[in-house]
């Protein structure tokens, strides 16, 4: 790593460390229904929303009702998006005259599942297939709704862990409305305007025809980009307005907009650890999670940046500079932008896959094998390295339960977390979530590699699914593995060479996204429902402190061991095999 990349990383960490307690405390107030600075302005709006929707804010829900309401809300949103995408041809704000032809039924299913689950996997080229209306209304509303529901689930789980002798874990509607009004909206308002100032467009113009200096006409895609970009990053959604996502100069025009985009990915997930600490009545509990996340984050940045800076031997053989100088970036610049260079591209890639964001400012498919292994492993870890808004915290709390369970096994004592006994039911539910996600990733990836399909058929016109890869050799397998990892992990980034816009991939990836979101959330809400009933046991000398350094190490061990044991064989076939081939000069 260069000095510059180290200083940038340090500055990034410093800012997150500073914002975490402030925003975390604020969110704790918001979700405990307390008055905040913004209450005088937003309070009346909140009341109107409750009245219009028939919500009784003081009414709390059992975990079953909370989960049921969330599922129902997601179904309504997903159906709405499906219909709007299919009908985009007759809807307004469509200067390029896109229609249902660009949004086939299978693609519309995949896309609506994708945005509903906070994945934002895009099997289509946005500027060639979706209208401004589709972007703004059919898709971007999910950036808000899925972010709000993710935060709500995390808060519900925290309530389950921290309340005692109760039955209810909060009111989903209230949590979502408050998350949107008090957290997402004020930040996005300022953020979107900042992005415009930096050069992100915000208009409804038809695509501009520029007469270039050399003569040919260049058609430049436009649109209401900034308003979508802000929530895309803050809500860890990641669905681009353009195909190149945050690598597109209109989505991310400057190094400063890039740095702020990176900060906005971790802002809420990191702060939620402090919210957890506040609600648990012990800030150290939150910092313990934060510490475990930070260690894995920094390790990922170091490995990824080093690999990318080292570049490709075959490119270096053409006498292309690998070492950075003051006037050129060196390294593996394939699929990277000049204004970001190696450091900011690698840093962004690690952040976006630690969180479930999935926005990209460089093409992960063109990363070096080890550089690409890091984003893939980050998603495979369960996206608990800060993770998605809400999703990161509830994922990490799941691993905390597994960690104290392992600790309990080692000393032969019933494990406790936050003073409550962790019993068979909770461990079963946590393991269920882990196993279902692993089965979805590995099962779907394996199926795509072996399933024979007829050429020119409906499901996959190219024939067998594995022929849809853009790269031969081990890298082709990585493309497929990354796709199902990204879908199940609700990340949305891609080794984008894979042609995923066929009925077979649209259907299986769409299913993986739904599994990854809801078969994670339901077991965790079940844990919340079971934990909320329990009575805390008094702390004794035998209690394992979950705010200690030992716990942080144990938690790290749980995340790394579960991930490594489950996925190492698959990784060995993909990026690890490719790395060995690359250093021996093999090309496919």
């Amino acid at each position, binding site marked *: 790593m260069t000095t510059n990349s180290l200083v940038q990383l340090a500055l990034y960490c410093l800012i997150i460390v500073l914002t975490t307690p402030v925003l975390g405390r604020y969110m704790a107030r918001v979700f405990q229904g307390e008055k905040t600075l913004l209450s005088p302005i937003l309070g009346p709006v909140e009341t109107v929303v409750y009245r219009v929707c028939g919500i009784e804010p003081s009414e709390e829900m059992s975990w079953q009702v909370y989960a049921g309401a969330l599922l129902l809300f997601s179904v309504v949103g997903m159906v*709405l998006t499906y219909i709007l995408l299919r009908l985009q041809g007759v809807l307004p704000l469509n200067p390029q005259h896109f229609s249902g032809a660009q949004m086939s039924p299978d693609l519309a299913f995949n896309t609506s599942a994708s945005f509903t689950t906070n994945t934002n996997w895009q099997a289509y080229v946005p500027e*060639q297939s979706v209208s401004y209306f589709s972007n703004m209304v059919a898709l971007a509303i999910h950036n808000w709704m899925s972010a709000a529901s993710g935060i709500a689930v995390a808060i519900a789980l925290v309530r389950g862990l921290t309340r005692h002798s109760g039955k209810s874990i909060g009111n989903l509607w209230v949590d979502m409305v408050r998350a949107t009004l008090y957290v997402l909206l004020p930040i996005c308002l300022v953020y979107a305007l900042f992005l415009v100032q930096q050069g992100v467009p915000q208009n409804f113009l038809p695509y501009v025809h520029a007469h270039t200096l050399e003569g040919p006409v260049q058609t430049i895609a436009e649109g209401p980009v900034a308003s979508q970009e802000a929530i895309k990053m803050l809500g860890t959604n990641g669905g681009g307005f353009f195909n190149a996502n945050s690598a597109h100069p209109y989505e991310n025009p400057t190094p400063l907009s890039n740095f702020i985009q990176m900060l906005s990915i971790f802002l809420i997930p990191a702060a939620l650890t402090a919210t957890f600490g506040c609600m648990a009545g012990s800030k150290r509990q939150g910092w313990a999670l934060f510490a475990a996340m930070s260690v894995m984050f920094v390790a990922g940045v170091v490995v990824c940046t080093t690999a990318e800076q080292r570049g490709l031997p075959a490119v270096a053989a053409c006498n292309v500079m690998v070492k950075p100088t003051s006037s050129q970036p060196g390294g593996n610049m394939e699929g990277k932008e000049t204004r970001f260079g190696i450091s900011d591209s690698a840093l962004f890639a690690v952040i976006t896959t630690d969180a479930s964001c999935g926005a990209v400012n460089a093409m992960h498919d063109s990363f070096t094998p080890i550089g690409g292994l890091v984003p893939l492993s980050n998603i495979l870890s369960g996206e608990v390295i800060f993770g998605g808004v809400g999703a990161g915290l509830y994922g990490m709390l799941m691993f905390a339960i597994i960690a104290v369970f392992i600790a309990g096994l080692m000393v032969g004592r019933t494990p406790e977390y936050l003073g409550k006994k962790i019993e068979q039911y909770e461990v079963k539910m946590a393991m269920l979530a882990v196993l279902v996600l692993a089965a979805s990733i590995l099962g779907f990836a394996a199926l795509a590699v072996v399933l024979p399909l007829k050429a020119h058929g409906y499901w996959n016109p190219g024939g067998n699914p594995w022929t849809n890869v853009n790269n031969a050799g081990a890298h082709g397998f990585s493309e497929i593995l990354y796709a199902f990892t990204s879908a199940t992990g609700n990340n949305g980034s891609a080794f984008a060479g894979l042609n995923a816009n066929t009925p077979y991939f649209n259907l299986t990836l769409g299913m993986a996204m739904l599994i990854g979101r809801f078969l994670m959330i339901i077991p965790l809400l079940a844990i919340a429902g079971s934990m909320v009933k329990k009575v805390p046991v008094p702390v004794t000398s035998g209690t394992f402190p979950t705010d200690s350094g030992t716990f942080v190490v144990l938690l790290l061990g749980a995340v790394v061991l579960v991930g490594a044991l489950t996925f190492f064989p698959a990784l060995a076939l993909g990026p690890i095999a490719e790395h060995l081939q690359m250093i021996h000069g093999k090309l496919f």
Partner: protein
Amino acid sequence: MLKIIKPAILLTAVFTIGTGFMFPAGITLLARLLFPGQANGSLVRSHGVVVGAAHIGQNFTAPYYFHPRPSAAGNGYDASNSSGTNLGPTSDKLIHGSPAAAGSSGFTGIAQLAAQYRKENNLSASTPLPADAVTYSASGLDPDISPANARLQAPRVAAAAGLTLNQVQLAITQSTRTRTFGLLGEPRVNVLALNLAIARLRAHSQPVQ
């Protein structure tokens, strides 16, 4: 059940109106008021005609202009079809290219791009090339090249444009942007801005044409 159906539908409606319509509309109004140029895409005009956008790269092939990075957006710098190559580190095609065949246009590999770049700029095989000069950008619309890349092209541009090397190098320096706060991003030269400067210099030095 009924008790959760009503809020599920109505809250979706509220989100659709609030975040789907009101938020983008509000941002559009404020953006137009505060930053009208950027809101409309930072378009660059020359003699009243839109010649491009400040942040969007465009293609240049003439010897008297600086050339941008290789692009995989459409057929090159298609600003309605952004894309990288998505070719990986062990791709033979990425290094050695592939010939044009029925149904697919050819692809120029990095080895060929390097040879072309050396030939165009009269560089020997022993001159190391900046990484950005021979690699495809992520968006295919990268507006910038590295300062090292610009400097290697300067002698060719000066000769073809009928300008002195000093004039061209001065233009490069004026179009170069350093790291933000000395820290963020990479030093870079905006190709469109630089070529507009070259076009102005040419117009002054060759008034009759």
